[in-house]
């Protein structure tokens, strides 16, 4: 008898799960239909996917080692052999363009995830708890917001070394405040809703309410914000690389631009292509962020 009951519960939960997946798929499909109408958003999605494919397939797309010098003659104009020319030391610019996508996306995505993690955790606590905890967290957040973060970033990387790990941690630690403010505002309004009150009435714990009731509803703004964080992190990292504070053993677009600066007069191609790569990647994540924002907060679009 008991076994049968368990079986029933089990089947029911499987059905529920199946149903949930179907519902999710339905939501995705109907949202995609709406998202498709936003041409800028679709372009952004294309750019994001394009550079992900380039990053993953880099060793296949260009077999030349981007860091190896004298692959060809130095400072050759773009041609069929060297589609984006070669730099002053005979490195292949096209190979740098392709391989540079890897580190940009890796650092951008890792930083954004970490930054979003810190921001969501602090914003959620501040918004849900309110009172003194909220005041204290917001004071720290506001402090981070008014600090000259790029200078601090440079100093910390200069002191502790320009490894990729350091760069990721530093950018993440300095970029979470905007997320925290956003999530706090979401949590403050969501905790007053009826479904949260209902959950509280049936005796759900704070943790349950936060994770199961509020967080899924705040997920949309978290996703939008994370996309924008990726864009920002890629820009900051490019800036660090341009100033010579990048990992010297990894090919990156910012470093290519640093190398291009003294040769601007002779080799324009050294400066042109890596910059286009940064611009398009960053634009992709910004467009996706904006597109999702329009999709998820249609109120804002009417304004």
């Amino acid at each position, binding site marked *: 008898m008991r076994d049968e009951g368990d079986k029933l519960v089990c089947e029911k939960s499987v059905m529920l799960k199946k149903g949930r997946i179907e519902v999710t798929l339905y939501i995705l499909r109907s949202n995609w239909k709406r998202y498709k109408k936003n041409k800028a958003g679709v372009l952004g999605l294309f750019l994001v996917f394009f550079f992900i494919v380039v990053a993953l397939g880099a060793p296949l797309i260009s077999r030349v080692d981007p860091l190896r010098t004298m692959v060809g003659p130095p400072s050759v104009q773009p041609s069929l052999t060297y589609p984006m020319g070669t730099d002053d030391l005979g490195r292949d610019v096209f190979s740098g363009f392709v391989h540079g996508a890897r580190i940009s996306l890796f650092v951008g995505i890792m930083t954004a995830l970490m930054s979003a993690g810190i921001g969501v955790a602090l914003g959620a606590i501040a918004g849900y708890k309110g009172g003194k905890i909220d005041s204290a967290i917001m004071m720290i957040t506001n402090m981070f917001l008014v600090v*000259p973060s790029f*200078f601090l970033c440079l100093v910390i990387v200069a*002191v502790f070394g320009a490894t990729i790990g350091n760069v990721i941690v530093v950018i993440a630690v300095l970029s979470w405040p905007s997320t925290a403010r956003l999530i706090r505002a979401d949590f403050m309004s969501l905790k007053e809703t009826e479904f949260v009150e209902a959950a509280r009435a049936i005796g759900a714990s704070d943790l349950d309410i936060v994770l199961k009731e509020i967080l899924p509803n705040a997920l949309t703004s978290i996703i939008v914000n994370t996309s924008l964080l990726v864009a920002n992190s890629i820009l900051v990292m490019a800036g660090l690389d341009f100033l010579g504070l990048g990992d010297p053993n990894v090919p990156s677009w910012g470093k290519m631009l640093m190398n291009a600066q003294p040769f601007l007069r002779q080799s*324009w191609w050294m400066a042109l292509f890596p910059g286009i790569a940064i*611009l398009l990647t960053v634009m992709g994540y910004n*467009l996706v962020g904006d597109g999702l924002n329009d999709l998820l907060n249609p109120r804002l679009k009417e*304004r």
Partner: protein
Amino acid sequence: MSRKGLLKQILFKCAFTLLTILIIVSVNFALIHLAPGSPVLMIAGEAAMSDPEYLIKMSKYYGLDKPIIEQYFLYLQRLFVGDLGYSWRYNERVAVLILERIPATLLLTVSAMVFAVFFGIFLGVYAARRPYSTVDNLVTTFVLTGYSIPIFWLGLMLILLFSVNLGLLPIGGMRTIGGNLTGFDYILDVLAHLLLPTVVLGTRTLALVARLTRANMLYVLGLDYIVTARSKGLSERRILFKHALKNAFLPVITIIGLQVPWILGGALLTETTFSWPGMGRLMYESLLTRDYPLIMGILVVTTIVVVAANLLVDIAYAFIDPRIRITNEG
């Protein structure tokens, strides 16, 4: 809000500002002591390592043999009287080096801000006039590019176009070296050097201001008092710039305040791209040579500037818009 309330708010903000500065200064102190290698290396600079006599002198001066708490208070004491340390490489006090560079940075950042706010508002208003028209779409595209473009690359491309190819503008620096210009010619020369860096540094803020102004204008233009103004038969220009912009402008002030840290970071990149002889360029040079006293000094000074600028914007805001209270929330 009462006068007393306003005063209290401002005092609270001042305390917050001082606390922020104290924390950054402490972080600075911690960095010197947490960094790999000995603190004396951080204070004296790598170049000084070959001079043992100087090292001993520095150790004594900074009290590196004393307990860390005591060192911390010594450090604060020295900062308080404006002693930011000594740069071995320039053979000069850090405070003097930074003071020399501040005017150039101020000129660049202020002109970039003015450029960004002026054109940003203009573009935003014109885009909002007819939403989803060609003008609006152009502005939207420009805005998107503006905040996606790495500014140092924009700088390189503008140099390539205007200085290398067209030969219209100087390639970098703040004045023509050996030009010996005076009076009006000198001002023109500086302005020619200032043009590209201003555009480069201002672009991102311009994009943000234009985007925000557009959104606010679209909201404000739908309000009743605008309908009233229209029905009174006021001219379109008067409605846009006099009636609507007044209310749409307020949030822009907040953005200006929040943009100050970014503008200074951007100034570092812009000055490096254009060899502009400001504080950012000094920071870049000191990073290259690992001139730590100079690096740390610039960090302290920029923090004070940024935080103070924010305080000013907050106070200005409270005076301009009495509805807004300065609070620590939201």
